[in-house]
Protein backbone atom coordinates (compact mmCIF):
# COMPACT_ATOMS: atom_id res chain seq x y z
CA UNK A 1 0.00 0.00 0.00
CA UNK A 2 1.22 3.49 -0.61
CA UNK A 3 -1.23 5.75 -2.29
CA UNK A 4 -0.45 9.37 -1.53
CA UNK A 5 -2.59 12.34 -2.47
CA UNK A 6 -1.76 16.01 -2.03
CA UNK A 7 -4.66 18.41 -2.26
CA UNK A 8 -4.07 22.16 -2.53
CA UNK A 9 -0.96 21.87 -0.39
CA UNK A 10 0.98 25.06 0.23
CA UNK A 11 4.05 25.84 2.27
CA UNK A 12 5.36 29.21 3.39
CA UNK A 13 8.45 30.00 5.40
CA UNK A 14 7.50 33.25 7.08
CA UNK A 15 6.43 35.61 4.31
CA UNK A 16 7.85 33.55 1.49
CA UNK A 17 5.57 31.06 -0.19
CA UNK A 18 7.86 28.27 -1.34
CA UNK A 19 5.09 25.97 -2.56
CA UNK A 20 1.99 27.61 -4.08
CA UNK A 21 -1.19 25.47 -4.05
CA UNK A 22 -0.22 22.11 -5.43
CA UNK A 23 -2.15 18.95 -6.32
CA UNK A 24 -0.45 15.63 -6.83
CA UNK A 25 -1.47 12.02 -6.94
CA UNK A 26 0.99 9.20 -6.37
CA UNK A 27 -0.29 5.71 -7.07
CA UNK A 28 0.51 2.55 -5.18
CA UNK A 29 3.75 0.94 -6.27
CA UNK A 30 4.81 3.82 -8.46
CA UNK A 31 8.36 5.14 -8.74
CA UNK A 32 7.92 8.89 -8.79
CA UNK A 33 10.83 11.25 -9.35
CA UNK A 34 10.77 14.93 -8.43
CA UNK A 35 13.16 16.94 -10.58
CA UNK A 36 13.78 20.62 -10.89
CA UNK A 37 16.51 23.19 -10.54
CA UNK A 38 18.15 23.85 -7.18
CA UNK A 39 15.91 25.66 -4.72
CA UNK A 40 12.66 24.83 -6.51
CA UNK A 41 11.18 23.10 -3.47
CA UNK A 42 11.80 19.41 -4.12
CA UNK A 43 13.14 18.70 -0.65
CA UNK A 44 10.46 20.83 0.93
CA UNK A 45 7.74 18.88 -0.87
CA UNK A 46 9.29 15.59 0.22
CA UNK A 47 9.54 16.79 3.82
CA UNK A 48 5.90 17.86 3.73
CA UNK A 49 4.95 14.35 2.67
CA UNK A 50 7.22 12.88 5.35
CA UNK A 51 5.72 15.16 8.00
CA UNK A 52 9.04 16.75 8.92
CA UNK A 53 7.53 20.10 7.92
CA UNK A 54 3.95 21.17 8.61
CA UNK A 55 1.89 22.19 5.63
CA UNK A 56 0.70 25.82 5.68
CA UNK A 57 -2.61 24.77 4.16
CA UNK A 58 -4.05 21.88 2.20
CA UNK A 59 -4.40 18.19 2.84
CA UNK A 60 -2.27 15.09 2.54
CA UNK A 61 -3.86 11.66 2.43
CA UNK A 62 -1.97 8.40 2.65
CA UNK A 63 -3.90 5.28 1.68
CA UNK A 64 -7.16 7.15 2.03
CA UNK A 65 -6.48 8.29 5.59
CA UNK A 66 -5.97 11.97 6.35
CA UNK A 67 -2.32 12.34 7.26
CA UNK A 68 -1.96 16.11 7.48
CA UNK A 69 -1.91 16.14 11.27
CA UNK A 70 -0.22 12.77 11.74
CA UNK A 71 3.33 12.87 13.15
CA UNK A 72 6.09 11.52 10.87
CA UNK A 73 6.56 8.24 12.72
CA UNK A 74 2.89 7.33 12.35
CA UNK A 75 2.66 7.94 8.61
CA UNK A 76 4.27 4.63 7.76
CA UNK A 77 6.81 6.25 5.45
CA UNK A 78 10.57 5.76 5.52
CA UNK A 79 13.07 8.33 4.40
CA UNK A 80 16.63 8.10 3.13
CA UNK A 81 18.51 11.34 3.60
CA UNK A 82 21.14 12.88 1.39
CA UNK A 83 23.67 12.79 4.23
CA UNK A 84 22.47 9.24 5.07
CA UNK A 85 21.90 10.42 8.67
CA UNK A 86 23.22 7.17 10.12
CA UNK A 87 23.73 7.04 13.88
CA UNK A 88 27.53 7.19 14.16
CA UNK A 89 27.81 5.56 17.58
CA UNK A 90 25.77 2.48 16.65
CA UNK A 91 26.91 -0.52 14.65
CA UNK A 92 25.33 -1.22 11.29
CA UNK A 93 23.18 -3.86 12.96
CA UNK A 94 21.91 -1.41 15.57
CA UNK A 95 21.36 1.27 12.96
CA UNK A 96 19.17 -1.00 10.89
CA UNK A 97 17.40 -2.35 13.96
CA UNK A 98 16.72 1.10 15.43
CA UNK A 99 13.22 1.59 13.97
CA UNK A 100 12.28 -1.92 15.11
CA UNK A 101 13.64 -1.26 18.57
CA UNK A 102 11.59 1.93 18.75
CA UNK A 103 8.55 -0.08 17.67
CA UNK A 104 9.36 -2.49 20.57
CA UNK A 105 9.51 -5.59 18.40
CA UNK A 106 10.91 -8.64 20.17
CA UNK A 107 14.61 -9.33 19.71
CA UNK A 108 14.22 -12.48 17.63
CA UNK A 109 11.98 -10.74 15.14
CA UNK A 110 14.36 -7.75 15.06
CA UNK A 111 17.31 -9.98 14.26
CA UNK A 112 15.38 -11.85 11.61
CA UNK A 113 14.41 -8.68 9.78
CA UNK A 114 17.87 -7.14 10.08
CA UNK A 115 19.51 -10.27 8.69
CA UNK A 116 17.02 -10.36 5.83
CA UNK A 117 17.61 -6.71 4.95
CA UNK A 118 21.38 -7.15 5.21
CA UNK A 119 21.19 -10.07 2.82
CA UNK A 120 19.21 -8.10 0.25
CA UNK A 121 21.68 -5.21 0.46
CA UNK A 122 24.90 -7.25 0.66
CA UNK A 123 25.70 -5.92 4.12
CA UNK A 124 25.99 -9.21 5.99
CA UNK A 125 29.76 -8.90 6.41
CA UNK A 126 29.53 -5.38 7.76
CA UNK A 127 26.87 -5.76 10.44
CA UNK A 128 29.27 -5.23 13.32
CA UNK A 129 31.03 -2.20 11.91
CA UNK A 130 30.32 1.42 12.68
CA UNK A 131 29.17 3.75 9.89
CA UNK A 132 32.53 5.53 10.08
CA UNK A 133 34.23 2.36 8.91
CA UNK A 134 32.15 2.01 5.75
CA UNK A 135 32.49 3.40 2.24
CA UNK A 136 29.98 5.87 0.85
CA UNK A 137 28.10 3.21 -1.09
CA UNK A 138 27.91 0.93 1.93
CA UNK A 139 26.61 3.75 4.11
CA UNK A 140 23.98 4.43 1.51
CA UNK A 141 22.94 0.80 1.66
CA UNK A 142 22.73 0.91 5.45
CA UNK A 143 20.45 3.93 5.19
CA UNK A 144 18.27 2.01 2.75
CA UNK A 145 18.39 -1.01 5.05
CA UNK A 146 17.13 1.08 7.94
CA UNK A 147 14.26 2.14 5.70
CA UNK A 148 13.25 -1.28 4.41
CA UNK A 149 13.09 -3.12 7.75
CA UNK A 150 10.13 -0.99 8.69
CA UNK A 151 8.20 -2.28 5.69
CA UNK A 152 6.86 1.20 5.00
CA UNK A 153 3.99 2.17 2.75
CA UNK A 154 6.36 4.32 0.72
CA UNK A 155 10.04 5.23 0.57
CA UNK A 156 11.18 8.81 0.32
CA UNK A 157 14.64 9.47 -1.07
CA UNK A 158 16.21 12.93 -1.01
CA UNK A 159 19.09 12.99 -3.51
CA UNK A 160 20.46 9.76 -2.08
CA UNK A 161 23.22 9.34 -4.65
CA UNK A 162 24.59 12.85 -4.87
CA UNK A 163 27.50 12.12 -2.53
CA UNK A 164 28.74 9.14 -4.53
CA UNK A 165 31.19 9.02 -7.39
CA UNK A 166 29.96 8.48 -10.93
CA UNK A 167 30.58 4.74 -11.18
CA UNK A 168 29.03 3.99 -7.83
CA UNK A 169 26.07 6.16 -8.67
CA UNK A 170 25.28 4.03 -11.70
CA UNK A 171 25.50 0.91 -9.55
CA UNK A 172 23.31 2.22 -6.77
CA UNK A 173 20.83 3.51 -9.29
CA UNK A 174 20.42 0.01 -10.64
CA UNK A 175 20.23 -1.43 -7.13
CA UNK A 176 17.49 0.96 -6.12
CA UNK A 177 15.56 0.20 -9.30
CA UNK A 178 15.93 -3.50 -8.60
CA UNK A 179 14.81 -2.98 -5.02
CA UNK A 180 11.72 -1.27 -6.36
CA UNK A 181 11.02 -4.24 -8.60
CA UNK A 182 11.33 -6.74 -5.73
CA UNK A 183 9.52 -4.76 -3.03
CA UNK A 184 6.92 -3.25 -5.31
CA UNK A 185 6.51 -0.38 -2.86
CA UNK A 186 5.82 3.23 -3.75
CA UNK A 187 9.02 5.26 -3.99
CA UNK A 188 9.37 9.00 -4.18
CA UNK A 189 12.78 10.08 -5.30
CA UNK A 190 14.22 13.59 -5.41
CA UNK A 191 17.08 14.34 -7.73
CA UNK A 192 18.39 16.98 -10.03
CA UNK A 193 20.17 14.40 -12.10
CA UNK A 194 18.54 14.01 -15.51
CA UNK A 195 19.77 10.49 -16.06
CA UNK A 196 18.49 9.25 -12.71
CA UNK A 197 15.12 10.78 -13.43
CA UNK A 198 14.82 9.39 -16.95
CA UNK A 199 16.06 5.89 -16.14
CA UNK A 200 14.39 5.19 -12.81
CA UNK A 201 11.03 6.88 -12.95
CA UNK A 202 7.62 5.55 -13.79
CA UNK A 203 6.46 9.10 -13.43
CA UNK A 204 8.44 12.33 -13.38
CA UNK A 205 7.22 15.46 -11.65
CA UNK A 206 8.98 18.54 -12.98
CA UNK A 207 9.01 21.37 -10.45
CA UNK A 208 9.88 24.97 -11.04
CA UNK A 209 9.70 27.52 -8.22
CA UNK A 210 7.34 25.26 -6.28
CA UNK A 211 4.96 24.86 -9.20
CA UNK A 212 4.44 21.54 -10.96
CA UNK A 213 5.22 22.22 -14.60
CA UNK A 214 4.37 18.76 -15.86
CA UNK A 215 3.73 15.23 -14.66
CA UNK A 216 4.28 12.30 -16.93
CA UNK A 217 6.34 9.30 -17.92
CA UNK A 218 9.93 10.02 -18.94
CA UNK A 219 9.26 9.57 -22.64
CA UNK A 220 6.09 11.65 -22.51
CA UNK A 221 8.14 14.51 -21.12
CA UNK A 222 10.80 13.98 -23.72
CA UNK A 223 8.48 13.84 -26.69
CA UNK A 224 5.68 16.13 -25.56
CA UNK A 225 6.96 18.71 -23.10
CA UNK A 226 4.13 20.95 -22.03
CA UNK A 227 6.20 24.13 -22.13
CA UNK A 228 9.59 25.61 -22.78
CA UNK A 229 10.81 25.00 -19.21
CA UNK A 230 10.16 21.28 -19.32
CA UNK A 231 11.53 21.06 -22.86
CA UNK A 232 14.75 22.73 -21.75
CA UNK A 233 15.02 20.77 -18.52
CA UNK A 234 14.48 17.24 -19.80
CA UNK A 235 17.06 15.91 -22.22
CA UNK A 236 20.81 16.18 -22.24
CA UNK A 237 22.39 18.16 -23.77
CA UNK A 238 19.67 20.79 -23.56
CA UNK A 239 17.19 21.51 -26.31
CA UNK A 240 18.18 24.40 -28.60
CA UNK A 241 15.80 27.32 -28.79
CA UNK A 242 15.60 29.60 -31.79
CA UNK A 243 13.58 32.79 -31.83
CA UNK A 244 12.96 35.41 -34.48
CA UNK A 245 12.65 34.91 -38.21
CA UNK A 246 12.94 31.13 -38.26
CA UNK A 247 10.26 30.83 -35.57
CA UNK A 248 7.91 33.28 -37.22
CA UNK A 249 8.10 31.23 -40.42
CA UNK A 250 6.53 28.38 -38.44
CA UNK A 251 3.92 30.57 -36.71
CA UNK A 252 5.59 30.43 -33.31
CA UNK A 253 7.33 32.74 -30.84
CA UNK A 254 10.10 30.26 -30.40
CA UNK A 255 11.06 26.89 -31.79
CA UNK A 256 12.96 24.15 -30.04
CA UNK A 257 14.98 21.33 -31.49
CA UNK A 258 16.97 18.73 -29.61
CA UNK A 259 20.69 18.30 -30.43
CA UNK A 260 20.06 14.76 -31.58
CA UNK A 261 17.44 15.88 -34.10
CA UNK A 262 19.67 18.07 -36.22
CA UNK A 263 21.52 16.79 -39.24
CA UNK A 264 24.96 18.27 -40.01
CA UNK A 265 26.70 18.49 -43.33
CA UNK A 266 29.79 20.24 -44.63
CA UNK A 267 28.19 21.02 -47.99
CA UNK A 268 24.57 22.07 -47.75
CA UNK A 269 21.60 22.47 -45.41
CA UNK A 270 18.90 24.82 -44.08
CA UNK A 271 20.97 26.83 -41.65
CA UNK A 272 24.57 27.98 -41.92
CA UNK A 273 26.92 28.36 -38.96
CA UNK A 274 30.49 28.13 -37.73
CA UNK A 275 31.84 25.56 -35.32
CA UNK A 276 32.88 26.95 -31.93
CA UNK A 277 33.89 23.89 -29.95
CA UNK A 278 33.71 20.26 -30.92
CA UNK A 279 33.74 17.59 -28.24
CA UNK A 280 34.74 14.12 -29.36
CA UNK A 281 33.46 11.38 -27.10
CA UNK A 282 34.15 8.56 -29.50
CA UNK A 283 30.59 7.33 -29.63
CA UNK A 284 29.26 10.81 -30.34
CA UNK A 285 30.52 14.20 -31.31
CA UNK A 286 28.97 17.31 -29.80
CA UNK A 287 29.35 20.50 -31.78
CA UNK A 288 28.70 23.97 -30.45
CA UNK A 289 27.75 26.06 -33.41
CA UNK A 290 27.39 29.82 -33.71
CA UNK A 291 24.67 30.88 -36.14
CA UNK A 292 24.25 34.44 -37.36
CA UNK A 293 21.08 35.97 -35.95
CA UNK A 294 20.70 33.39 -33.16
CA UNK A 295 21.55 34.50 -29.64
CA UNK A 296 22.82 31.32 -28.08
CA UNK A 297 25.07 28.64 -29.42
CA UNK A 298 23.35 25.67 -31.01
CA UNK A 299 24.38 22.28 -29.69
CA UNK A 300 24.34 19.46 -32.17
CA UNK A 301 24.92 15.79 -31.60
CA UNK A 302 26.39 13.67 -34.36
CA UNK A 303 26.69 9.92 -33.98
CA UNK A 304 30.23 8.58 -34.29
CA UNK A 305 33.11 10.82 -35.31
CA UNK A 306 32.72 13.97 -37.27
CA UNK A 307 35.71 15.81 -38.64
CA UNK A 308 34.88 19.43 -37.97
CA UNK A 309 37.20 21.87 -36.22
CA UNK A 310 36.93 25.28 -34.68
CA UNK A 311 36.06 27.87 -37.31
CA UNK A 312 34.79 25.43 -39.95
CA UNK A 313 31.56 26.30 -41.72
CA UNK A 314 28.81 23.71 -41.41
CA UNK A 315 25.20 23.44 -42.52
CA UNK A 316 22.42 22.29 -40.20
CA UNK A 317 19.15 20.64 -41.15
CA UNK A 318 16.61 20.18 -38.36
CA UNK A 319 14.30 17.18 -38.49
CA UNK A 320 11.00 19.00 -39.10
CA UNK A 321 8.89 16.23 -37.57
CA UNK A 322 10.74 16.57 -34.25
CA UNK A 323 10.53 20.35 -34.02
CA UNK A 324 8.70 21.87 -31.05
CA UNK A 325 6.89 25.18 -31.40
CA UNK A 326 6.21 27.44 -28.42
CA UNK A 327 3.86 30.40 -28.14
CA UNK A 328 4.47 33.72 -26.42
CA UNK A 329 3.58 32.22 -23.00
CA UNK A 330 6.15 29.50 -23.54
CA UNK A 331 3.46 26.83 -23.94
CA UNK A 332 4.01 24.18 -26.57
CA UNK A 333 1.81 24.40 -29.66
CA UNK A 334 0.62 20.89 -30.42
Amino acid sequence: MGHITLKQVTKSFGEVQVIPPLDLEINDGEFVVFVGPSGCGKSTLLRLIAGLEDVSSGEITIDGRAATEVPPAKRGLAMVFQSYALYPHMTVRKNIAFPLRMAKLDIAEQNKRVEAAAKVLNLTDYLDRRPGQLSGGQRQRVAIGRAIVREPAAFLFDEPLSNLDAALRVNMRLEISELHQTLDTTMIYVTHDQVEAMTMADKIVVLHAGVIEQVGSPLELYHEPRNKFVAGFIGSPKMNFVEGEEAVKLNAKCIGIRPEHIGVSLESGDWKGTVGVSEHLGSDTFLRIKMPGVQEHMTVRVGGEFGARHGDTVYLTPDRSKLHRFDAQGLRIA
Partner: protein
Amino acid sequence: MATQHSRSAARIMMAPAVFLLLVWMLVPLCMTLWFSVRSYLPLRGGDQGFVGLENFSRFITSSAFWPAVQTTLIIVGGVLVISIVLGVLLAILLDQPMWGQGVVRILVIAPFFVMPTVTALVWKNMFMDPTNGMFAHLWRFFGADPVVWLTDASVLSIIVIVSWQWLPFATLILLTAIQSLDSEQLEAAEMDGANPVARFFFIALPHLSRAITIVILIQTIFVLAVFAEIFVTTGGAFGTRTLTYLIYQRVLESQNVGLGSAGGVYAIILANIVAIFLMRIVGKNLDN
Protein backbone atom coordinates in the same frame (compact mmCIF):
# COMPACT_ATOMS: atom_id res chain seq x y z
CA MET B 1 57.20 20.07 9.68
CA ALA B 2 58.30 18.25 6.60
CA THR B 3 61.97 18.86 6.23
CA GLN B 4 64.86 18.28 8.61
CA HIS B 5 65.55 21.97 8.54
CA SER B 6 62.08 23.15 9.46
CA ARG B 7 61.94 20.55 12.20
CA SER B 8 65.09 21.75 13.92
CA ALA B 9 63.96 25.36 13.44
CA ALA B 10 60.70 24.45 15.15
CA ARG B 11 62.60 22.91 18.04
CA ILE B 12 64.67 26.02 18.57
CA MET B 13 61.57 28.18 18.47
CA MET B 14 59.77 26.03 21.01
CA ALA B 15 62.73 25.74 23.33
CA PRO B 16 62.09 28.88 25.43
CA ALA B 17 58.48 27.90 26.07
CA VAL B 18 59.40 24.34 26.95
CA PHE B 19 62.19 25.55 29.21
CA LEU B 20 59.92 27.99 31.01
CA LEU B 21 57.24 25.35 31.49
CA LEU B 22 59.75 22.86 32.84
CA VAL B 23 61.18 25.34 35.31
CA TRP B 24 57.71 26.43 36.29
CA MET B 25 56.69 22.87 37.04
CA LEU B 26 59.90 21.22 38.08
CA VAL B 27 61.17 23.74 40.61
CA PRO B 28 58.11 23.63 42.89
CA LEU B 29 57.85 19.88 42.40
CA CYS B 30 61.47 19.35 43.40
CA MET B 31 61.11 21.68 46.37
CA THR B 32 58.04 19.79 47.52
CA LEU B 33 59.86 16.50 47.23
CA TRP B 34 62.86 17.96 49.05
CA PHE B 35 60.87 19.35 51.98
CA SER B 36 58.76 16.22 52.26
CA VAL B 37 61.73 14.24 53.49
CA ARG B 38 62.93 16.84 55.96
CA SER B 39 61.65 18.07 59.28
CA TYR B 40 61.10 21.75 58.58
CA LEU B 41 59.29 23.81 61.22
CA PRO B 42 59.84 27.50 60.36
CA LEU B 43 58.81 28.86 63.79
CA ARG B 44 60.15 26.01 65.87
CA GLY B 45 63.78 25.62 64.96
CA GLY B 46 63.68 25.78 61.17
CA ASP B 47 65.16 23.01 59.04
CA GLN B 48 66.08 20.13 61.35
CA GLY B 49 67.47 17.80 58.76
CA PHE B 50 66.60 14.59 56.94
CA VAL B 51 63.89 12.40 58.49
CA GLY B 52 63.29 9.83 55.75
CA LEU B 53 59.66 8.89 55.17
CA GLU B 54 58.45 9.93 58.60
CA ASN B 55 56.41 12.85 57.24
CA PHE B 56 54.65 10.52 54.84
CA SER B 57 53.64 8.02 57.48
CA ARG B 58 52.58 10.76 59.87
CA PHE B 59 50.44 12.47 57.25
CA ILE B 60 48.66 9.31 56.25
CA THR B 61 48.13 8.00 59.77
CA SER B 62 46.74 11.27 61.06
CA SER B 63 43.07 10.97 61.89
CA ALA B 64 42.29 13.80 59.48
CA PHE B 65 43.67 12.11 56.36
CA TRP B 66 41.03 9.62 55.25
CA PRO B 67 38.09 11.91 56.04
CA ALA B 68 39.83 14.57 53.95
CA VAL B 69 40.23 12.20 51.01
CA GLN B 70 36.60 11.22 51.35
CA THR B 71 35.44 14.84 51.48
CA THR B 72 37.53 15.66 48.44
CA LEU B 73 36.00 12.84 46.43
CA ILE B 74 32.47 13.70 47.56
CA ILE B 75 32.91 17.32 46.54
CA VAL B 76 34.45 16.44 43.16
CA GLY B 77 31.76 13.85 42.47
CA GLY B 78 28.93 16.13 43.55
CA VAL B 79 30.16 19.00 41.44
CA LEU B 80 30.57 16.75 38.41
CA VAL B 81 27.09 15.29 38.71
CA ILE B 82 25.41 18.65 39.20
CA SER B 83 27.32 20.52 36.53
CA ILE B 84 26.91 17.80 33.92
CA VAL B 85 23.24 17.05 34.50
CA LEU B 86 22.29 20.73 34.67
CA GLY B 87 24.82 21.55 31.96
CA VAL B 88 23.20 19.17 29.49
CA LEU B 89 19.73 20.51 30.31
CA LEU B 90 20.86 24.14 30.04
CA ALA B 91 22.71 23.46 26.81
CA ILE B 92 19.60 21.94 25.26
CA LEU B 93 17.55 24.88 26.49
CA LEU B 94 20.00 27.43 25.12
CA ASP B 95 20.09 25.62 21.79
CA GLN B 96 16.38 26.28 21.26
CA PRO B 97 15.68 29.32 19.14
CA MET B 98 14.41 32.04 21.47
CA TRP B 99 14.27 35.74 21.84
CA GLY B 100 17.40 37.38 23.29
CA GLN B 101 19.49 34.25 22.87
CA GLY B 102 22.78 36.12 22.68
CA VAL B 103 22.23 38.00 25.93
CA VAL B 104 21.02 34.91 27.76
CA ARG B 105 24.09 32.99 26.66
CA ILE B 106 26.41 35.68 27.98
CA LEU B 107 24.51 35.76 31.28
CA VAL B 108 24.86 32.03 31.64
CA ILE B 109 28.59 32.24 31.11
CA ALA B 110 29.00 35.11 33.58
CA PRO B 111 29.58 33.12 36.83
CA PHE B 112 32.71 31.67 35.29
CA PHE B 113 34.29 35.12 35.25
CA VAL B 114 33.67 35.79 38.94
CA MET B 115 36.65 35.10 41.16
CA PRO B 116 36.25 32.10 43.49
CA THR B 117 36.69 34.23 46.61
CA VAL B 118 33.98 36.62 45.49
CA THR B 119 31.68 33.78 44.54
CA ALA B 120 32.08 32.23 47.95
CA LEU B 121 31.49 35.53 49.74
CA VAL B 122 28.39 36.26 47.70
CA TRP B 123 26.93 32.84 48.41
CA LYS B 124 27.87 32.96 52.07
CA ASN B 125 26.41 36.38 52.76
CA MET B 126 23.65 36.80 50.19
CA PHE B 127 22.18 33.33 49.94
CA MET B 128 23.24 31.15 52.82
CA ASP B 129 23.28 33.57 55.72
CA PRO B 130 20.87 32.08 58.27
CA THR B 131 19.29 35.43 59.20
CA ASN B 132 19.57 37.70 56.18
CA GLY B 133 20.26 35.32 53.32
CA MET B 134 17.83 34.85 50.44
CA PHE B 135 17.33 31.22 51.34
CA ALA B 136 16.52 32.13 54.92
CA HIS B 137 13.85 34.55 53.67
CA LEU B 138 12.50 31.96 51.31
CA TRP B 139 12.31 29.33 54.04
CA ARG B 140 10.57 31.78 56.39
CA PHE B 141 8.16 32.76 53.63
CA PHE B 142 6.98 29.15 53.55
CA GLY B 143 6.93 29.08 57.33
CA ALA B 144 9.97 26.83 57.72
CA ASP B 145 12.96 27.28 59.97
CA PRO B 146 15.91 28.66 57.99
CA VAL B 147 18.68 26.14 57.44
CA VAL B 148 22.07 27.10 58.80
CA TRP B 149 23.68 26.07 55.54
CA LEU B 150 27.37 26.35 56.29
CA THR B 151 27.22 24.34 59.51
CA ASP B 152 24.31 21.94 59.03
CA ALA B 153 24.77 21.18 55.35
CA SER B 154 28.34 22.30 54.92
CA VAL B 155 29.56 19.85 52.28
CA LEU B 156 26.40 20.33 50.25
CA SER B 157 26.87 24.11 50.47
CA ILE B 158 30.42 23.86 49.15
CA ILE B 159 29.24 21.57 46.35
CA VAL B 160 26.51 24.06 45.41
CA ILE B 161 28.92 26.99 45.38
CA VAL B 162 31.57 25.22 43.32
CA SER B 163 28.95 23.81 40.95
CA TRP B 164 27.56 27.27 40.37
CA GLN B 165 31.02 28.31 39.34
CA TRP B 166 31.67 25.42 37.01
CA LEU B 167 28.21 25.03 35.51
CA PRO B 168 28.85 27.72 32.86
CA PHE B 169 31.98 25.96 31.70
CA ALA B 170 30.14 22.67 31.33
CA THR B 171 27.21 24.38 29.63
CA LEU B 172 29.44 26.16 27.15
CA ILE B 173 31.30 23.02 26.09
CA LEU B 174 28.10 20.98 25.90
CA LEU B 175 26.30 23.71 23.97
CA THR B 176 28.93 23.74 21.24
CA ALA B 177 28.71 19.96 21.12
CA ILE B 178 24.92 20.03 20.80
CA GLN B 179 25.14 22.58 18.02
CA SER B 180 27.29 20.20 16.03
CA LEU B 181 24.61 17.50 16.13
CA ASP B 182 23.36 16.85 12.61
CA SER B 183 19.68 17.78 12.51
CA GLU B 184 19.07 15.13 9.85
CA GLN B 185 20.03 12.50 12.42
CA LEU B 186 17.32 13.74 14.72
CA GLU B 187 14.85 13.82 11.87
CA ALA B 188 15.82 10.32 10.85
CA ALA B 189 15.24 9.17 14.42
CA GLU B 190 11.90 10.95 14.42
CA MET B 191 10.88 9.10 11.26
CA ASP B 192 12.11 5.88 12.85
CA GLY B 193 9.55 6.37 15.59
CA ALA B 194 11.73 7.71 18.40
CA ASN B 195 9.88 10.04 20.77
CA PRO B 196 11.69 13.11 22.19
CA VAL B 197 12.93 11.19 25.24
CA ALA B 198 14.26 8.35 23.11
CA ARG B 199 15.85 10.87 20.76
CA PHE B 200 17.63 12.40 23.73
CA PHE B 201 18.95 9.13 25.11
CA PHE B 202 19.74 7.36 21.84
CA ILE B 203 20.97 10.21 19.67
CA ALA B 204 21.80 13.39 21.58
CA LEU B 205 23.44 11.88 24.66
CA PRO B 206 25.81 9.57 22.76
CA HIS B 207 26.71 12.53 20.59
CA LEU B 208 27.55 14.47 23.76
CA SER B 209 29.59 11.70 25.35
CA ARG B 210 32.88 13.04 24.07
CA ALA B 211 32.17 16.56 25.34
CA ILE B 212 31.03 15.12 28.67
CA THR B 213 34.27 13.21 29.15
CA ILE B 214 36.24 16.34 28.41
CA VAL B 215 34.21 18.30 30.95
CA ILE B 216 34.75 15.56 33.54
CA LEU B 217 38.47 15.51 32.94
CA ILE B 218 39.03 19.23 33.13
CA GLN B 219 36.67 19.85 36.02
CA THR B 220 38.07 17.02 38.10
CA ILE B 221 41.57 18.41 37.86
CA PHE B 222 40.44 21.89 38.88
CA VAL B 223 37.91 20.91 41.53
CA LEU B 224 40.43 18.65 43.26
CA ALA B 225 42.34 21.83 44.05
CA VAL B 226 39.39 23.89 45.31
CA PHE B 227 40.52 26.09 48.16
CA ALA B 228 39.19 29.66 48.27
CA GLU B 229 35.55 28.54 48.48
CA ILE B 230 36.31 26.53 51.62
CA PHE B 231 38.63 29.07 53.15
CA VAL B 232 36.07 31.86 52.84
CA THR B 233 33.00 29.93 53.96
CA THR B 234 33.68 27.21 56.54
CA GLY B 235 37.42 27.48 57.02
CA GLY B 236 37.64 23.73 56.78
CA ALA B 237 35.30 23.12 59.70
CA PHE B 238 32.14 20.96 59.75
CA GLY B 239 33.61 18.20 57.63
CA THR B 240 34.64 20.35 54.70
CA ARG B 241 38.35 19.75 55.07
CA THR B 242 39.59 18.51 51.72
CA LEU B 243 43.05 17.21 51.01
CA THR B 244 44.13 20.59 49.67
CA TYR B 245 42.79 22.28 52.75
CA LEU B 246 44.48 19.78 55.05
CA ILE B 247 47.83 20.50 53.41
CA TYR B 248 47.25 24.21 53.87
CA GLN B 249 46.51 23.68 57.54
CA ARG B 250 49.61 21.56 58.06
CA VAL B 251 51.87 24.12 56.43
CA LEU B 252 50.41 27.39 57.66
CA GLU B 253 48.38 26.65 60.74
CA SER B 254 50.67 24.00 62.22
CA GLN B 255 53.74 25.56 60.64
CA ASN B 256 54.98 22.15 59.54
CA VAL B 257 56.34 22.51 56.02
CA GLY B 258 57.73 18.99 55.89
CA LEU B 259 54.42 17.37 56.80
CA GLY B 260 52.52 19.61 54.37
CA SER B 261 54.92 18.77 51.57
CA ALA B 262 54.38 15.07 52.16
CA GLY B 263 50.64 15.79 51.85
CA GLY B 264 51.39 17.63 48.63
CA VAL B 265 53.09 14.55 47.26
CA TYR B 266 50.02 12.48 48.15
CA ALA B 267 47.84 15.02 46.38
CA ILE B 268 50.01 14.73 43.29
CA ILE B 269 49.65 10.96 43.40
CA LEU B 270 45.89 11.17 43.89
CA ALA B 271 45.51 13.64 41.02
CA ASN B 272 47.58 11.39 38.78
CA ILE B 273 45.57 8.32 39.64
CA VAL B 274 42.38 10.18 38.80
CA ALA B 275 43.94 11.63 35.65
CA ILE B 276 45.21 8.28 34.35
CA PHE B 277 41.86 6.72 35.07
CA LEU B 278 40.07 9.52 33.22
CA MET B 279 42.52 9.61 30.35
CA ARG B 280 41.74 5.99 29.63
CA ILE B 281 38.01 6.70 29.49
CA VAL B 282 38.56 9.79 27.38
CA GLY B 283 40.99 7.96 25.15
CA LYS B 284 38.43 5.23 24.61
CA ASN B 285 35.75 7.77 23.88
CA LEU B 286 37.89 9.86 21.56
CA ASP B 287 38.95 6.83 19.55
CA ASN B 288 35.66 6.28 17.82
